[in-house]
């Protein structure tokens, strides 16, 4: 069976923020689905990790939550990006890009 990877430690928060930035307000299930889809179903989001991550972002003031109605008229808790959250996305994105670039250089430059 094709075993899916768990989300790497520390990257889930950025994925959540990025998801909210591109999709706008979204409920927990929607966020999980989107992350899984974006990864081409390579990643599996564990709810035992997702909820604490959402809570942590909310406690830190990067996202806010509100109860609302979903597309199919169900009650759901929607998360949206705050102003601080928006700043955080661009900051972390830049950082992440830099990290991966450095890492890529190591990995490719190792043999030459």
């Amino acid at each position, binding site marked *: 069976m094709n075993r899916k990877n768990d989300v790497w430690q520390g990257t889930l928060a950025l994925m959540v923020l990025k998801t909210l930035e591109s999709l706008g307000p979204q409920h*927990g299930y929607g966020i999980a689905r989107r992350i899984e889809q974006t990864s081409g179903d390579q990643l599996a989001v564990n709810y*035992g990790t997702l909820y*604490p991550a959402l*809570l942590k972002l909310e406690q*830190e003031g990067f996202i806010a939550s509100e109860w609302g109605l*979903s597309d*199919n008229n*169900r009650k*759901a*808790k929607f998360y949206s990006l705050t102003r601080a959250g928006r700043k955080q996305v661009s900051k972390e994105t830049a950082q992440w890009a830099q990290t991966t670039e450095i890492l890529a250089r190591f990995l490719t430059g190792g043999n030459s």
Partner: protein
Amino acid sequence: MRRFRAFWLRAASSVGRKSAESDMAAEIESNFELHIAENIQRGMDPAAARREAVLRFGNPESVKESYRDRRSLPALQMLSQDLTYAFRTFQKSPGFTLAAVVTLALGIGANTAIFSVVDAALIRPLPYPSADRLVNVWATASRRGIDHSQTSAGDYFDWHDHASSFEALASHASWPMNLTGVADPLHLSGRLVSANFFDALGVAPERGRTFLRGEDKPGNDSVVISHRLWVQLGSAGDIIGKTLVLNGGTSVVVGVMPAGFHYPIRETDVWVPLPLDAKNRAFREGHWMTVFGRLRAGASIESATREMQVIASRIEREYPATNSGWSVRLVSLREELTGNVRPVIWAFQGAAGLLLLMGCVNLANLLLARAASRSRELAIRSSLGAGRGRIVRQLLTESLLLALGGGAGGLLLAYAAVKAIRASDFGFIPNATEVSLSAAVVLFAVACSLLVGVLFGLAPALQAARTDLQSVLKAGGRGTQSGVERRRNLLVSAEVALAFVLLAGGGLLVRSLWQMTSTDPGFRSANVLSMKLMLPRSQYSSNLKQAAVFDPLLAKVRSMPGVRAAGAVSDPPLNGNDMTFKVVPENFQWSANEPHPEAVLRAATPGYLATVDLRLAAGRDFADFDTAQSTQVAMINEATAKRYWPGVDPIGRRIRIVDEDRWMTIVGVTRNLRKRVLSEEEAPVLYVPYTQKSQPWLSWASLVLRTDGDPRAYLNAIRAEIRGLDRNLPLSDIETLDEVLSKATAFHRLRAVLIGSIAGVALVMALLGVYGVLSWAVAQRTQEIGIRLALGAPAGRLTRQFLGTGLVRVVAGILVGAAAALGVTRWIETMLFGVAPRDPVTFLAVAALLIASSVVAMWLPTRRALRIDPTIAIRMD
């Protein structure tokens, strides 16, 4: 910053969480439903859609658990659980809880109260800017055993002109003053000061100015007064420039010092510039000035000492007649103010610390016993999954809570003690009025509580956590006793040892006090009143003028009904103001490297000796026929006789003061008085009659009278007499000799009572410990005792056996305590009088007391156990 915000949100949601819980459940539920709905949308049948969603979500309880852990602070929740649990335990055993809190409150209270004194007297900076740079400069003459002498004006000005280590080197001297021209004349404590006196202290006046450079010369009439005197004079806003009549002359107030300022003594109310002309500035005979200075920034006391010693030896070479053998010593002001009491205060703190330690041992003991009986409960908790760390943590929470409760009680006690200390204003505690529960003191109490909580809680907690589950559950709660008993026995020995140290210290102090109070001071104090009358020198400039007040006053007082005797003397017993003069005893030879003969000079009237019952060893008292014109006479004390006329009858021999050619014939030899510290006999003394003294400046006298009843009843009549002679004469230092004597021993009494009562409490604690451990051990063995009794073992043998094992612990404690006490008591050697710090009688008495009282404490529970009916005992579980 973000983390901080998150932390507070978590901490806050640890408290109220009902709504958050349902919110979480609703969110999980709604996401679950969304998942199913989407599955159906993708074409799954409802049952399969639900099954897939369940698999995807995992165990909802474990999801919730990780959600909860993030929502709040797990540690905080655990703490609140532990707290709830601890309070429930306290409720179940209120007796134990109360005993623990009270014990700790007493211990922490005593330590906190004493620490408040340490804080005010020894830690807090002195109330002068950069006070650590203030030093006293004392003249020393090591060959004569003098290490703390005032100095002469000539020496001071030389020091002042040549020393470069000081920003300012100032001097001051006592200058008693009468303030007249006001409704009630006042006797004030005044100071003659050099012009730079206030500059050296670095304190600015509250009003007006302090003295200007060059103001310390004759003819200057400026004075600076204390805030207290300003208030006493009516708090006039326009006081600056007003005149005061001081010692008969007029002075102009130029400044008022701020409230709370005092230097050099608390009582000082008036500061006057030194009125010295060039001749007096060069005078090197009399040592009457106290010198202090402010060190330059960067100058150390050592470097300043070296510089001052060089200057002193130069002066010594230049003026060998007056300065031969004199050098200097620098002492920091703090050392000066607290040097004497520091060991005493630390001894108090040490004793209180030992007491607290005993309290801890006692509680540890109780907790161990409780932990043993709780071992079943704890075993069940741990078999339900509580980790070892968790159990230690819970038990420590309990002991810390007890300790904090004790700390709160201790702070209350300390608050009461601080109020008492401030009110009593013991002269021997520097800054007694500044003692308070400052932040440092409160912090000390809290730290004390926490430390104590860990100290008495850790051993029982670890003990409980180490418990072997199986054996406890099997043995029905009695599985670990041998270990507990061993540990408890050790604690008992420790307690006995601590009690021994405290009892030995207390015993030594109490014995010293007893020795001191039973020492004959050389006079009889009952029904004697003493009061000081200061005649202004300007007005009463000769013996004859002074006699015009003293003679009729004494005659009048003697004629009052009920007055047995009356007289006057310049310095009454235990007064401590000795004026030492160089004397020349006739035909007494001393070699060049011996110090010049000296004697303390006192002027007295006929009848003074009889009034205070100072006995004559030989010869006669002064009499009315010893007038200015008759043969010049003197009396000496036995110390003078022994030193200068050893083995010879001194009556009829002659003595004179150096630089005078007035030979005085010795007519009487008095017994020696005790010094102000009763432990010492006084030095050689020379008494001269008021009518013949060659010191016209000695214009004061203490009037003493012995009466049939309360001598204070005569005070008003005496005041009236004095007013009749001169309405501007104030009386001061009105004290009965009983009060003087009691004051002389007050410090000794206080510390003996304090340490003694601490030792008493320690004894009780130790006995409780001994009693508790033995009754517990006996109770644990009730069954065994029953069996042995039933098998016919004689009760006496069982008693002996129990007492024997208990006594071994006590004796071990005594041996350790005695060894510790032998090391410790030398720290209080300076507080002892007439008792050696390792006094064998005290040590043996303490050992006997401990053994006897612990035998009683152990016999009580043993007897109770042996009285039990064997049939009942055997069936007990």
